[in-house]
């Protein structure tokens, strides 16, 4: 059984490594001369400048905002604290390219750096807020009280006692923001801000720049992997130990007094700009839909239904495949930890550093050469989804399996049940709810995915995301609105699920 288990567990990581290695290989295969010509040119410098500037700006803004929100929610007597705890995470519900659509449809002034910075900061601040809030909640207030008893003022307690303990969560969150800025494509394309991803897409569209695209993908991939390694180093294994720590005494909340209003603004403004504004914009364009602006194809209920169905169907299938691939790996890591399990798990996590556009291009290139049957099939698109969302599924599957005691499996086996019967009668029912939640998360991620879908969708398949994309690209904002509305609805469900799990873990 272990050999079969290891083999099954390895499928996912191998699928993740395939596009990464193929991209590296095609870049290295271009030869030094060609590589130098393609790497050391003004475009690459400009893209690096654009990307890194935006990345740093977003990291800083999200870091400050996320830390401030977390501290306000967890440590002060803020009115409506519980509601804010959920609302602060809510902008995550708006896919960045939908937010991009919203901003660019308001005024052209948001095109370029300003809009890009706003969108990624607002959308990704929860990536800092969530872990920092959890870390704050996990801190023993006795430490702070001891420090205060030793004569330190509040501010110095924060700097010398609280902040050092939040550092892994804060830096880890900020690096996740950086990673997401690197891999984001749709929002930047719609906001006309040039980064590596948009330029790779442009190179792909003009068709005859395979080497240039490969080289840009190579640089982007390296940047992403760098971020990922930094994130691993900062967060270490803490990433897994987040759930179920039990309650600690909550620190006595700080009365805000005359600072209440400014504090409320700090929390309310990002929510307003990151969640309400996109929703309001979609609603506005919905009312204007009758006046249909230029749309690449006639809008109709049939089209909306077809796109919704495609998104649902791809989401369901993609989630099933991804969770199936994640299960043996999660099981291996949870039940037979060791070097091999860690190695496979790390390999799967590499997918977090693999931009959708790079994965999609590499997979389609591999398929056209080595797997013609898969080429242009929904199957290949599903594989791309599985690669992109494997880390999400593995983390959840592992957590679900770790919650099911191993002793229960021993008992079942001693009672004569083979591993299949054990899986069916014991593991599945126990880990089922957790796996279901994992599948739901992957489902929503897939059904709102843009980049890989854009490049790999089989003939005639249009999803909500590609419809929003196609309409917004030609500035047909009203035509995009119904698709964006349905998609945001999906996304809100996922955030609600996340928030609920987060809340459950915190109680």
């Amino acid at each position, binding site marked *: 059984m272990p050999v079969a288990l290891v083999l099954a567990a390895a499928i996912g990581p191998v699928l993740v490594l395939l596009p990464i290695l193929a991209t590296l290989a095609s870049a290295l295969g271009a030869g030094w001369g060609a590589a130098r010509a393609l790497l050391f040119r003004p*475009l690459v410098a400009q893209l690096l400048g654009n990307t890194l500037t935006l990345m740093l700006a977003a990291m800083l803004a999200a870091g400050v905002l996320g830390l401030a929100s977390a501290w306000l929610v967890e440590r002060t007597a803020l009115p409506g604290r519980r509601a804010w705890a959920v609302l602060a995470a809510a902008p995550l519900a708006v896919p960045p390219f939908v937010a991009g659509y919203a901003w660019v449809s308001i005024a052209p002034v948001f095109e370029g750096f300003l809009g890009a910075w706003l969108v990624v900061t607002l959308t990704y601040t929860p990536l800092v807020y969530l872990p920092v809030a959890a870390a704050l909640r996990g801190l023993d207030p006795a430490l702070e009280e001891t420090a205060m008893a030793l004569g330190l003022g509040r501010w110095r307690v924060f700097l010398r006692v609280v902040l050092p303990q939040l550092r892994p969560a804060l830096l880890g969150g900020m690096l996740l923001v950086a990673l997401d800025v690197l891999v984001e494509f749709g929002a930047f394309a719609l906001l006309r801000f040039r980064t590596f991803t948009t330029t790779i897409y442009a190179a792909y569209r003009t*068709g005859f720049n395979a080497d240039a695209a490969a080289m840009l993908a190579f640089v982007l991939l390296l940047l992403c992997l760098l971020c990922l390694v930094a994130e691993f180093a900062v967060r270490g294994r803490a990433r897994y130990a987040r759930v179920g720590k039990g309650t600690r005494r909550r620190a006595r909340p700080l009365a805000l007094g005359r600072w209440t209003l400014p504090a409320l603004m700090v929390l309310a403004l990002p929510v307003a700009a990151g969640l309400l504004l996109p929703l309001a914009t979609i609603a506005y364009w919905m009312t204007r839909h009758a006046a249909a602006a230029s749309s690449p194809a006639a809008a109709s209920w049939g089209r909306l239904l077809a796109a919704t169905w495609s998104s649902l169907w791809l989401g369901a299938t993609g989630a099933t495949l991804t969770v199936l691939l994640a299960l043996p790996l999660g099981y291996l890591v949870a039940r037979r930890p060791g070097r091999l399990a860690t190695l496979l798990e790390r390999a799967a996590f590499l997918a977090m550093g693999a931009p959708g556009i790079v994965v999609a291009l590499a997979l389609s290139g591999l398929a056209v050469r080595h797997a013609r049957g898969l080429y242009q099939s929904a199957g290949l698109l599903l594989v791309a989804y599985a690669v992109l969302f494997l880390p999400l599924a593995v983390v959840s599957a592992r957590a679900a399996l770790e919650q099911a005691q191993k002793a229960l499996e021993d008992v079942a086996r001693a009672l004569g049940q083979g591993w299949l019967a054990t899986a069916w009668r014991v593991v599945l029912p126990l880990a089922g709810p957790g796996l279901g939640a994992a599948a739901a998360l992957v489902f929503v991620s897939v059904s709102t995915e843009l980049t890989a879908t854009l490049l790999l969708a089989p003939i*005639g398949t249009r999803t909500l995301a590609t419809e929003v994309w196609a309409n917004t*690209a030609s500035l047909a904002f009203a035509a995009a609105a119904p698709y964006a509305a349905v998609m945001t609805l999906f996304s809100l469900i996922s955030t609600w699920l996340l928030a609920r799990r987060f809340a459950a873990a915190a109680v």
Partner: protein
Amino acid sequence: MFRLSRRAVLLGGGVLLAAPFVASRAAQAGTPLVLYAAQHEQVVDMITRAFTKSTGIAVRTRFGEAPEIANQIATEGRHSPADVYFTENSPELLLLDERHMLAPVEKSTLAQVPARWSAPSGNWLGVLARDSVLAYNPRLVTADALPASLLDLAAPAWKGRVAFAPTDADTLPVIGAIAALKGRAAALAWLRGMKANAKIYDDDEGVIAAVDRGAVATGIVNSYYWCRLRTEQGAAKTASRLHRFSPDDVGNLINVSGAAVLASSRRQAEAQRFLAFLVSAPMQMALAQSDIDFEYPLRPGIAANPLLAPFASLRPPPVTIAGIGDDRLAARLLQDVGLV
């Protein structure tokens, strides 16, 4: 109850997982004619529906940007599922022809349109034509301040006042034409100027919409996009106007929208029938009279959409289809200046 739901979940999952593979098998078994189209979806949908209605032959269409699709066909090689390629511009057709991937078009079909709009080799067919123009927003720039030549837009005076979609399939032939008429260095210099001046968009739809809403003063587009916007919004709501450069200027380039049968197609007869259908009088008439396609029918004797300037009044630059080339030079130049 729980066991039942567990089973149901697994069963459902299994069916779902099997479906995409089954579906693609089934699709192969039915083998409709496969069309790779870089033309506008609505136009292509209109054509394929009419074709299926008239011949009973089903058509499945893959849409994409022209060079992307052409490159895809080139990559797929002999195994390409495509039977017919229908695109907005000549260069990609030229490229596939150079690679010997196209089958000769039937003589009787070629005879339906003037020879200069089809491939000299006879391997692809000109179907429709569109012309390049400068769209402008009168609130931001007056008509008399507009340039006489496309090349003027690279001058510092136009910094931040021109929109441009360098990776749109309609733009690449313009770059190719500049290189053919003025030389490679001039084309490079122009692109450098445009890189400094222009607001970059993904495609002509983006350019025309931006000009119309006043985000930018002028934009290089095909007249097609302005006519479509004007049709959808109505005259009252359309702020933008069209400007034609001085006669014979490269900015007045005419692009040919053409079609070809893939040499690798196993359905040559049906594919040829599709080509013949494209240039048949009823189809050309229907396209010209529709409010979704704003191109000049190449079949003689059919009047174009009234929003378009009369075909005879156009003063295109003296460059041949072969002169425009196959986009590879244009792509190379874009790369050299760092636009891609």
